[in-house]
């Protein structure tokens, strides 16, 4: 797995974004989190 710190979002990254992009990003990250939780739960069963 690649260096995880490279995947962390910085303030500079966020400053480039419009309102629409921020909203999209928020929802995308929430969905990714839901996906992770589903996978962890399924793999425990």
């Amino acid at each position: 797995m690649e260096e995880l710190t490279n995947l962390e979002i910085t303030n500079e990254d966020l400053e480039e974004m419009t309102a629409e992009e921020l909203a999209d990003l928020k929802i995308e990250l929430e969905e990714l989190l839901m996906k992770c939780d589903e996978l962890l739960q399924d793999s425990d069963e």
Partner: protein
Amino acid sequence: MELNEKLNQDYNKDKKIYQKTQRLQATVKNLEQQLKILKREWQDAKLKETRAKEDGDVVAEKEAQAEAATKIKETQEVQAKLNLIREVITKNKNKVDGYIQELKKDPEFEEHVNDILEKRYNRQLAKAIKEQNQVNTILDLCQKHPTLSNNLKGMISAQEELDKLNKEIETLDAEKDKDKLDEIKGKIDAAFGKKNKNMDLFMDFCTKNNLDIDREFLDNLVSEKGFAHDKQGNIKLEKTLKNISKGYEKRVLAYQVAISKVPGAKINEENHELLGEGPEEPETQDTQDTLATTVLKKLNADPMKHGGVRSSQPPAKKYKWWEFRKRFQDWNARRKAEKQKTEPGKEPEEGGKTSSEKFRNSYKYDVVKDYVDKQEQEIYKQALKDVKEAMKDDTEEQR
């Protein structure tokens, strides 16, 4: 609207955030595939163990047990990686949320972002409901039609074969193992053929019976989800489909909660209908999920504000044709009055906003307004048609 979003998507690709998020998604997808394969391999090992036990083969039984234990260990390693990725995603999400909260100190920005979030969450909610409906339809079909159940099992077993073969290919050398590679490629072609043939049969039935099943969705369902097997190695179709449906139910609730948390946001008309008129759910265990109960109570407190629940609702009151005509005329007059009040670019009064007005204000594109106007004309035409039909029914009843 769709063109604008497509342009935004293309523009996004150059930004670092887009690339980081893509890499996170790709990593999660990769780990998902690994977990799916490991689960299948563990199930195979347990099956070997059962058969060896039945045959009285102690050596084979111990080998199978060791293999099962290895798969559990490998699964735990993948879970650990997934937890690390999850931490990064959580950090990123908290950062974005914090940044948005700071910007929301500007009321204009807050309103704009809330409008966008409402629209996006409603879109995701609609997608989740429609996908859940497809899963429930597939489950219903498999319960009623053994042939279709066999078709689906055929697709799943072909996909499992493909996963196994693709994993085997990765360990081979292109030059040294050429013969073996050719053999595996032949098996892969056969497995693809089996999967597609079963899918064609399943989809033919759905098309002939006007069932709303999307081929791509079916393919993803078979490819991405790992289906459980029993001790005899048979696919536990119903149980897995019910679990998948439950997963979607959680998502649907999560999106409804998300909408309720955005100030001024509402579940839109389309989702109202989807939530109220979905197909019957398959029998599931009675969920005592407190979050679901809390959300549903909150949502049902004001049925006009939020979507209703899929469980039974009282049938709609039937109106006489003249009452329907009057209701429609009142509705149309109210709608026209609201349209005249709100001009493009001007903020509407407090508490008076509809989702269609926010939609227009947010984008301010003529093409969007033209599209919405056209939709309203279509609704009016359909309503007039309904009134005429109601009048006709009433006249026939009186005879």
